[in-house]
């Protein structure tokens, strides 16, 4: 299901026009992104939680050139599905 299908579904489920649904979707994504960028987790009940995790810097070795490289630390976004959702798709 791509974004277009998703908007259509959302519009149908919440009695909105496709354009409105698209705006709502974008709004929600924007808010989520803002929150996540501000270092706060987002926990959606009955869905799951979005967390920003810090991955430490590490040294990797290129298998081709055998060079050792220092990979810098980074912040990654991770999603952990709710236990109920986990069970649902099991």
């Amino acid at each position, binding site marked *: *299901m*791509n*974004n277009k*299908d*998703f908007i259509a*579904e*959302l519009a149908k*489920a*919440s009695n*909105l026009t496709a354009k409105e649904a698209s*705006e*709502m*979707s*974008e*709004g*929600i*994504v*924007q*808010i*989520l*992104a803002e*929150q*996540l*960028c501000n*270092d*706060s*987790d*987002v*926990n*959606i*009940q*009955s*869905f*799951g*939680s979005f967390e*920003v995790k810090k991955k430490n*810097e590490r*040294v990797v070795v290129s298998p081709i050139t055998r*060079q*050792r*490289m*220092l*990979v*810098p*630390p*980074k*912040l*990654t*976004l*991770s*999603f952990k*599905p709710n236990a109920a*959702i*986990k069970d*649902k*798709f*099991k």
Partner: protein
Amino acid sequence: MKEGKFMIQDLADVLSQRKNISAEKARDVARMFFDTILAGLEKDRFVKIKGLGTFKLVSVDNRESVDVNSGERIVIEGHSKVSFTPDNALKEAVNRPFAHFETVVLNDEVTDEQLEQVDKRFAAEQEQANEVVSKVIPEVIPEEKPIEEPIEESIEKPVETPVETVIKTPAETPAETVTETPIETAEAPVEKPEEAPKAAAEEPVIPVVVQQETQMDGQKVLLVKLVDTVQVDVNKNATNLMENNEINNNIKSGKSRTALWIVCVVMALLLGYILGYFRVFGSSVNKPTVVKDTVYIEKKQEKKANADTLAAVQEVPAAEVKAQEPAKPQPVVEEKPVEKKPVEKKTQIEETNDSGIPQVKYGAYNIVGTQETYTVKKGETVRIIAERYLGARDMAIYISTYNRIKNPDLVSVGTVLKIPKLEVKKK
């Protein structure tokens, strides 16, 4: 995190403010948003949302595991799990605080703090290195020069002298003594000097060495004098017939001939030995200038002798080569490490622990002692014994390592093997 969890209610509140919709409506929309994601996952197994990312259902195969409590083997059945890959834009937005970092290629043992220091040191070291190089170069050049000079001289002199003397003497002598046609004699000497320079080019150090020898050793001076007396004969030789040794023999008296031979061979051997000696310890190049006159004569003799020996016999260079070979210690030294290397490789596999017991480096077990001993019977290999005592043929490496056997497939009957006692390596 810091301001508490951001719940769906907070999301709805913000949404209602931004989109100017009622709180209830916003809450519904927010809920529908996530419910639709779940519905989409169920339907298509993936949902892609612009700006957020992709949710996917990933199927996981059956896998075996061990019950943590009982240690029993259990099978975790295959299932699906939800995976989420954030959109690139969101990924970068989240990582913005660390975005300026880049992957760095590391040299050997470098830590973060060292990297900064190294930059400063590097600049300083480069300056130092430049200075050192500029100092070293003037030192090296004077060292090289003395080596080059004698070689040049030695090459030049022999080239000149034989050409002069050899050509002259034949030109004079044949008219006086020999009755043969001048054409032949003319040809022969021409060939000779050609060969002589070649020899000089091949063995440029020879004259120098001879100088030193004559200075140092009285006996060798005598030898050289011998050559001196013989030289007349050599000249005659050169004038008479150069190409045919047989005719030479006929004309020349046997005594002078044999004497020449002996002297030539002795000289060649000596030269070969000294050559080798100076190539190995070649740094010392003495330049005696005082004795140049005598040396000059000696060189002439030398060249004559060379010319003669080259024309007559090829054994002399061979003898020289032979004499050089034992004098060079370098190849012998090189061979030794080659022999050592495989031994070192073996020791890498079989390292010994503190108590002196050889260990299999990458094995899962440590050898802690002797379980029992076993005498090999006919038709048995270490692998068969390993299967009996250690449970698997592959465990033969522990027996062969413990008993320091090189070929586990070849054990003689009656060999007493120590069966090692094994212990799982702890991590």
